[in-house]
Each structure stands twice: as C-alpha cells, then as structure tokens.
C-alpha cells in the first residue's frame, strides 16, 4: 500500500495534435512542481530539453496516427512503457484531422498544398488504440485539468482513475445548471456525450457540441430526431457529430445526408 520509493518515470509523447492536451499538464500551475517531485518527467519535449531513452513506467500519449512513421514510433513507445495512457480526442478518437477519413486525402492535399507529391501521409487518421494496447483513455478536446490530475494521482495510488463515463447531462444536473435543451430549445449533444468538462457549454448558455466524444452506450440515433424537431437541419447534425470525435463510434455512423459537401450541394 505504501508508495514506491523510486519515482516512476513518465514520458509525454506527441503525435498529430494541437498540443493543447499536453499543455494541460503545464496548466496545472498549482500542482506542477509537486507533480514533478512525485514523478520523474523523463521525456517531455514541450517542457524540457533533457530527454531519456526509457524505459518508462508511464507514457502519456497525445495525438493521432497519421503517417507511416507514426505507426513505428507508437510501437516503440509501447515497447518502452509499462503503462500507456492516451489523452485527448486526437489520441482517443483520431481528432478533427480524422475528418480526412470521410473524404479524399488527395483532394485535401491539393487544396492545401501546391505540391502535394511531397507529402507522405496515411489515407486515414486513427486513434492510438487502433495500433497498440492502451491502459486508459482520457477523453476531451481538450482534456480537463482535474481529470488529468486524477489520472496521475490514481496511477501513483495504483487504482483505476475515477472518471465517470456517463453523460454530460449528469454533470449538468450536478452543477444545478438548467437544461438548455429542455428550457430553451437549444440543440445539445449532452445526452450522448461523455462527461468530464463539468457541463461547460450549458453553463455558458450553449448546447454541448460533443468535444468529449460519445459516452458509454451513447444513442445518437435517439437524439437525432429530437434535434430535427428543434430545428437543426440534418446537414448541420451531420457536421456537429463530425468534428473532434468524428471517427469514434457511434458518432461516425451518423447518417450522412446529401448534400453535405460542396460538390454535392452544387449538383443537387
């Protein structure tokens, strides 16, 4: 039951992402120096020039897999690490860049780059669990700071993180926040979205837009008709389910109305 005398070594890795989730660690202003005493931050490029080759007790992985080189690197991370925790929508669901999976990569490349031939990217962007075994996935775009601390704290204590997998609605109610969907007719993804943010959007008078991805046993197919009756057109619904967690099930299976893309719009 007593804490290991040796400080566990922790590495923080980045794949395709915006850096926001690993920044969350630096945003733990009150706890950062204490955390650094409890764990040995052995590899964290964003925070330190000192790097270790491992092995590591815990690897925290941000970002999704989008290049062939990423696939090799994530395997190495797994081999070097006793435990792997992924953080954020990119790592757990592919992130917004996984929108590429629904379209044509070549076309995207042409839109953005004059000489796309030089790019080497995979056709699909995938979450880390598609490639290696992951010990725990922390959701959010971005992750929540308190939850990150809970992941680290629970790791140190040797327990599973106490992180609820049910809806944002539960957090909304716990916060005493009146429901914007029922009381204002504002479309809200809360009933299908994984809690963790503390019902942030409803607290700001806005419907949840799903940045923590689907909750356990989410039923977007039940919510969709409701959104329709609230005046949210189907193409808009498609878009709202297809943002930062677009590639997670069951969001990715939300039916795709036509027209949704530009070319479809011009032909219909």
């Amino acid at each position, binding site marked *: 039951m007593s804490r290991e005398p040796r400080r566990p070594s922790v590495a923080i890795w980045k794949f395709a992402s915006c850096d926001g989730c690993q920044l969350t660690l630096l945003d733990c202003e009150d706890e950062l120096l204490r955390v650094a005493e409890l764990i040995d931050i052995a590899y964290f490029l964003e925070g330190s020039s000192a790097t270790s080759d491992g092995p590591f007790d815990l690897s925290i992985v941000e970002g999704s897999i989008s290049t062939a080189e990423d696939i090799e690197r994530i395997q190495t991370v797994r081999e070097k690490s006793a435990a792997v925790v992924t953080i954020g929508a990119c790592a757990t669901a592919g992130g917004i860049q996984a929108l590429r999976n629904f379209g044509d990569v070549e076309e995207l490349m042409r839109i953005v780059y004059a000489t796309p031939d030089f790019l080497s990217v995979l056709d699909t962007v995938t979450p880390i669990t598609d490639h290696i075994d992951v010990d725990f996935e922390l959701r959010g775009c971005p992750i929540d700071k308190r939850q990150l601390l809970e992941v680290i704290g629970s790791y140190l204590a040797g327990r599973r993180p106490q992180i609820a997998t049910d809806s944002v609605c539960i957090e909304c109610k716990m916060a005493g926040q009146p429901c914007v969907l029922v009381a204002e007719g504002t479309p809200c993804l809360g*009933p299908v979205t994984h809690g963790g943010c503390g019902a942030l959007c409803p607290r700001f008078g806005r419907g949840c837009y799903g940045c923590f991805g689907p909750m356990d046993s989410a039923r977007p197919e039940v919510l969709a008709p409701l959104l329709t009756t609230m005046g949210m057109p189907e193409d808009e619904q498609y878009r709202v389910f297809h943002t930062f967690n677009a590639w997670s099930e069951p969001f990715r299976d939300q039916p795709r109305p036509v027209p949704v893309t530009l070319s479809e719009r011009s032909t219909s």
Partner: protein
Amino acid sequence: MSDSGATAALPDPAAVSLAIADLDRLISTLRDDGRVVIGPTTRDSVMTLDEIAGAGQLPRGWLDEQSPGKYRATPSETATAFAHGPPSMSWKRFLHEERTLVISTSRTNGAMVIDPAPAAPEKPLAFFGIQACDLAAIGVLDVALADDAAYRRRRDDLLVVAASCTDSVATCFCVSAGTGPRPGPLADIVLTELADGSLIADARTERGAAVLTRAGLDTAATEADCRSAAALVDAAAARQTRHLDTEAIARAAAAPDDVGWDAVAERCLTCGNCTMVCPTCFCTSISDQTRLDDGCAERWQIWASCFSLDFAYVHGGSVRTSPTSRYRQWYLHKLVTWHDQFDSSGCVGCGRCITWCPTGIDITEAITS
C-alpha cells in the same frame, strides 16, 4: 399524508394573513435565527432553487409551462410568487449533496488514522416555498437515508415553510400520487397564496407558530380569504390531467418481462436526467480520491444514476447493459419495488422526469402504449 388530498379542510382557523411585504419579515426572521433560507428563484429564465436573502428573489411575476421534454418560463403580469410548477431542480441536493466527503485519512506518527468527515457546524436550513410533492419526497428520503449521517444532520435541523400549489403544470400528477397539492405533515408552516399575491400562513408545529410570532405576523386571516385560498388549491388539483396508471404498474409488478418496455426504451437516451431531477432518487457511488500533496486518501459519496452503464458493474461487465433493462430498473424501482423496500411509492408525482427528459418519456404512460 391524510391531509394532503385535493379536497382537504380549510386552513386552520388560527391561520394568519400576510401581505406580500410580510414575506420579507418571515424570511429575515428565519435568517436571524441563523438559518440558510433556500427558496425558488429564477436563473437563466428557469425557476430553480438557491439561497435567498429576501422575497425579492422569489419568482414573482413569472409563469412556467411544462410538458414532456419542454420547459418554458416567461415573465408575466401576475402578482404571485408560488403559482408555478416544480422548480427545475429538486430540494434533495440541499439535504443529500451531489458530493459528500465520507472520510479522509491522515498520518500520526506514521500510522494511518481515519478521520470521519467533520460534522461541520453547518448553519441549519429553512426550506421556503417547498411544494407538496417535494415535501412528500423528503418524507420518502427520510426512510431511504435514515442511516445517512450527513443527511440526518441536515434533516434534523430543517425548518419547513411549505407552499400550497395554486397552479398545476401539465406534467403534475401529485393528486394521483396522493401527495398534493396540499402540503403534508412535514411542514412547520404552510403558505397559501391568493391571486393578488397576499397569503395565508398556517402554522403546523409549535416551532412554526413561534416563527410567525417572532416575525410579528398575527393578523387573523378572514374566512373569505381562507375560502378563496382553498378554492384555488382545489382548482389546481382539478387541472391535473396526468395520472399514474395503476393497472399498468400492477401488470409490470406481476410480470416484468411481459410488459412492452422496448417502445419506451427506444426513446431513452440513457442520459440519466430523470434520476438526477427526481426528488427521491438517492443513489450514490463511493470512491477513493488521493491527495497529491500529502498522499492521504479521501472517500467521497457522489450522486449516481441507474441509467449509467457502470452502475451495475460487477467484475466482467454490467448486469444491466441494454437501455431496456436500465429503463425498467428505474420504472420498477420508483413504482413497484420501492413499496417492498420502504413501504411507500418512490414517485411523488412532481413530473420532473417528464419535463426534463429530453425526449419527453412520460412515466405515467411509459408502458401503457
């Protein structure tokens, strides 16, 4: 709950009459007694509950409409503060908080010591304007949480100023649940509001009478006022259109598997809103948290919902995986097995689960269709 029926007797002849302005005196008397006064108030265009410092914070001049999956409150010309449906949240959160510390640990000379959660000398509470259904819910929680130290502590100190309902919204069914619209026996004082906003106050306990006296409220109510108050409450009762379907409940109790749950479950998001707004749902999870600074542990009791997949988790998975089985647990617990466990129904007819269910699933007709 004998005097809670729709056609109960007139208020006590000793009832006193209150002008709108007297409410402030009543509230400040309670506050002067060192109580935190909780009452209905508007926030984000919704009537909710919060600490109030004066009658100005009551939702006077607001009207609400509630229907399955829909709530709208709008400012209006009315002079009344209590002619509304149940507030968005229930009062349970003030007695049975969302998060309660159970114990924490510390170290003394290297040995681990358990420190039970401090029985903090909290200020006693006064519930101001609690309606009959919600008051009945406290009676229900009194049984279910009889052994819960934190609940008991707050409950024992509670003073209740209830409000008779002079209006019903479309989701109300307290008459059929046998809990309203007249507040039942747990009230210390019962207020009944007239159309012009003046009120009749009826002390039900000595404690309640003493509060009225201290507030200097002693103008006897006229019989005419008492009659119109009673008529308003009766009219509110008469307006209710929803009723518990006793036949369906009996069928479900007898043969839970033969009931058509799937039609309801098809519309259930398993979001848990119904359990969160329910004034009697008491379930919690208990979990450990470790403090980073000193490594000591805390155990927290946190609201839980039987709609969450991991609610019934045992090693290897949940015993209730389908939405059907989770909806059935909620329905049967509220309306059937609660009787076995606690000798009463778990449903008090407030209708919140109907209003606040995003898809408007209606417990009064969930399994009739």
